[in-house]
């Protein structure tokens, strides 16, 4: 089906689509920061902004842990507990991933 990998073709349509994706994404990255700069440094909004990273982070991983089933929940718990006691990102990741890999190998 494929002859040799197509390395260097740049079609105008592709480049324009990719640029559109890039502008939209970068605009939201920078736009979010510049909007936050306009919020007050103290009071309710500052308090909300300080809670924001934790809320985003939790919303990223909690649904994916749960949708991975019981082994996903156990893996996330192992990761969090290891992090609390060892305070090492790599160790915490390895603990969770080993548990999930072992669980899938032996149970799944």
């Amino acid at each position: 089906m494929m002859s040799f990998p197509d390395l260097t073709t740049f079609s105008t349509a592709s480049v324009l689509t990719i640029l559109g994706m890039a502008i939209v994404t970068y605009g939201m990255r920078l736009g979010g920061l510049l909007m936050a700069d306009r919020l007050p440094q103290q009071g309710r909004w500052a308090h909300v902004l300080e809670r924001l990273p934790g809320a985003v982070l939790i919303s990223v991983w909690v649904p994916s842990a749960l949708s991975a089933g019981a082994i996903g929940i156990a893996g996330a718990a192992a990761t969090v507990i290891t992090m609390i006691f060892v305070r090492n990102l790599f160790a915490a990741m390895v603990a969770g991933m080993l548990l999930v890999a072992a669980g899938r190998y032996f149970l799944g």
Partner: protein
Amino acid sequence: MSRPQSAPTRHFDADTIRRGAIACLPLLPSTMIFGAVLGVLATQRGLSLGELLFMSLTVFAGSAQFVSVDLWRETIPAATIIVATAVINLRYVLIGASLRPVFRGRPLWVKICGMHMVADENWAVTMTQENLANPGFLLGGGIFLGIVWATGNTIGYLLGGGIPDPNVYALDFAFTAVFAALTVGMWKGRVDLLPWLAAAIGSLIGHYTLPGTWSILAGAGAGVVVAALTWREDMDDTAPEPEIAADTFGAPEGTYSTEAGK
């Protein structure tokens, strides 16, 4: 290393960039493999390797790229792809907003240069650093992840298959694990409890009722609303932040002001 306090006074210090890159090292295997999987997908959808790498370095957002490459056809559905990218990447508005302390007191050009290479992973790693006000650290992680991501793309594209299934080695779980672990470092005390619970519940409800990555926005939105509702006047004293964060690194007086970036 002899004077660790002096380095971050520069906007993008080489040593700080290196530390940021090293801090993202645990993400190398999973980022490489998923980059390769995207490379394989791109060969099936008719993107050239050059176009894929161009996308990886200009868009630099994993989940949006997977959806976009999957939608790619001979006649490119450009509008669909760009709208899908916007929806999936809406969370970057929140991620950008939460980076305010990292860029505190920095001029606008630093923000413009520093905000491109921001992925979920190097953002999360940066946000759990003790000395937050460090755009170089964020950029270092971004450059590292960008190189690994593009290398993975190239390997996957050239092999065109035969990439190990990430699920077997639980590499798909690596992203869940890194975000779960980094959440621990973001705990600032009991004020976080209710907003975090709201975020967890909101994201789960979103996950089962809304399509795609809307669950992130649902959870973050719930967390924000609860944080706003639970705020009291006396809470400000619990987190004394310096007016000019750069001062903590011993910046010469007058080098930075909070007005510099406005």
